[in-house]
């Protein structure tokens, strides 16, 4: 019997990955989750083992760790209880996206759903939800978050864009046309998992979508902001095309990170960590 396929749901923070995880979780009653605290601890150790998360060599270093028996054993302890299910198993931690180069080495034939949202709107949501009031009033966020978004997206796509079963879901499309997008999601899951869900599944999943919860809508601002690079705008347009089912290969060399981005990401995180006592 072939091993159960893992289903990764990835996306930058506040991009709708959590919503998609809930929808998919209702479709896949078995093989879901794992221990969030254990996963978070493992993720932190992974990053710490190979230096800063904001580093151009992170994907290669994570792939190296995946070849290390000690790390593989630790990872298997997390995966095995979930992967023993009869059907596809869901790995619902969006931060997996940055660590995909590691996990991709340990699993066979993964399925992937990439959640995408306008980075400017995601940044405003992130700022609102993750920062204390005092910091929200004094810092600006678009450029920092766009570098964070760009790197995470590049790492994710470099792993999953060429997998045979990868679906891109646009948050804005999901909120505007929930019936069409949920049908699209269910069709994808049916095809990828070999399990057929009927129309009843669509209506059930629609219960989880509340368009009135769509805050921070300023979709044009991202393309008009002076602090956003040309490559970042092009990357978001690429994601929009993929969310519209364009069959377009991913070429990371078209969206390079500028060399000065790493320092800004690291220093911003360092100061915020000093200010709030934890990383964001």
């Amino acid at each position, binding site marked *: 019997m072939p091993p159960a396929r893992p289903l990764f749901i990835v996306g930058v923070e506040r991009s709708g990955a959590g919503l998609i995880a809930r929808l998919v979780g209702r479709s896949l009653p078995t093989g879901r989750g794992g221990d969030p605290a254990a996963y978070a601890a493992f993720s932190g150790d992974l990053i710490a083992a190979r230096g800063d998360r904001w580093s151009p060599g992170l994907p290669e270093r994570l792939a190296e760790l995946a070849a290390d028996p000690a790390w593989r054993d630790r990872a298997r302890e997390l995966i095995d209880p979930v992967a023993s299910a009869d059907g596809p198993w869901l790995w619902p931690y969006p931060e997996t996206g940055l660590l995909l180069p590691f996990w991709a080495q340990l699993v066979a034939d993964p399925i992937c759903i990439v959640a995408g949202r306008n980075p400017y709107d995601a940044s405003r949501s992130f700022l609102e939800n993750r920062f204390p009031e*005092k*910091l929200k009033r*004094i*810092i*600006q*966020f*678009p*450029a*920092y978050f766009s*570098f964070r978004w760009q790197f995470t997206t590049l790492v994710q796509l470099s792993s999953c864009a060429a997998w045979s079963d990868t679906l891109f879901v646009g948050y804005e499309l999901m909120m505007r046309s929930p019936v069409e997008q949920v049908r699209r999601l269910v069709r994808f899951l049916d095809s990828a998992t070999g399990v057929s869900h009927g129309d009843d599944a669509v209506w059930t999943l629609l219960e989880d979508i509340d368009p009135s919860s769509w805050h921070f809508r300023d979709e044009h601002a991202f393309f008009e902001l*002076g*602090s*956003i*690079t040309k490559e970042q705008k092009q990357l978001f347009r690429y994601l929009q095309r993929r969310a519209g089912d364009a069959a377009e290969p991913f070429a990371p060399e078209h969206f390079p990170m*500028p*060399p*000065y*981005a*790493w*320092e*800004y990401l*690291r*220093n*911003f995180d*360092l*100061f*915020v960590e*000093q*200010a709030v006592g934890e990383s964001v």
Partner: protein
Amino acid sequence: MSRDNSAPPCRPVWVLGIDRSGTSLVSDLIHRWGAYAGDADSLGGADVFNPQGYFEYSPMQALLHEVAVGTDVTEWDPRFPALLQKQAFNPELREKALALVAEMEKEGRPWLWKEPFISLHMSFWERIVSPPVCVMTVRNPHDSASSFTRMGFRTEVRERLRLTSYFSLRWQVFMLAILDYLERNDEHLVVCYESLLREPAAEVDRLCRFLDRCFDQTQGGAERSARMVAAIDPKLWRYKEPTSFFDVPEATEAQKELLRYLHRRAADQRDPFDPARYPYPPHYQEYLDNFDQLVGYLQERSSKSQP
């Protein structure tokens, strides 16, 4: 505002440059040349970062702060220079500025001001004071960044901090502001910090002859030069990064080209200045503003927690 064509005896000499680029050293040289720097009690003391003093006239610094705050934007905002121009017509600020200038002119001889941020305030001051003689300092920004990092951060933060990109952006803003002003003021000299430390006699002589020319000093140049060169201690040339700025990935091509241009100006090659050749990267203002805000937030919190 005095704008007649004769060189008044009390013309100012202003040192323009970013922090940690030799502005204090050059100020010391100009002071030894014979310029009045202000009452000693108002100049602040020396410390481990500047063993020979800062030469920063505190009443002038206080006014710069007041003028800047009144614009309601930060110095990194592209609107800052235009807003400063308007501040020059604020009667209260104008009166304070003129009073400061009068205080310096009381000595009846050339007088010196140095404060890095005055480099960003020229659109205010050029509407207040006669055109100063200017000496601009240029130093490898990578080395300046290294020096800057050692001031003002706790050890555990400093060990994780790298400020090459931040400081290069800050440096770019300063350099472009100064060069823009110098397009309107021909009486200036660009001094390269590294040249000053490597060839002190030649560079001091160059500076001395420039000042003598500006102030019609025809006698005693050799004595002035000797007094000035005695201030230079090459042992105080610390923080030389092993990697050349031109090889540093965090610096943009525009910044590297700007440093090359400044080196030519320091060698007295007066190439035309075109700011469009040195564009800022898109995120520059956000990084500069956030750095100031977050560091300020942490410093304020730290001072509140002191007993």
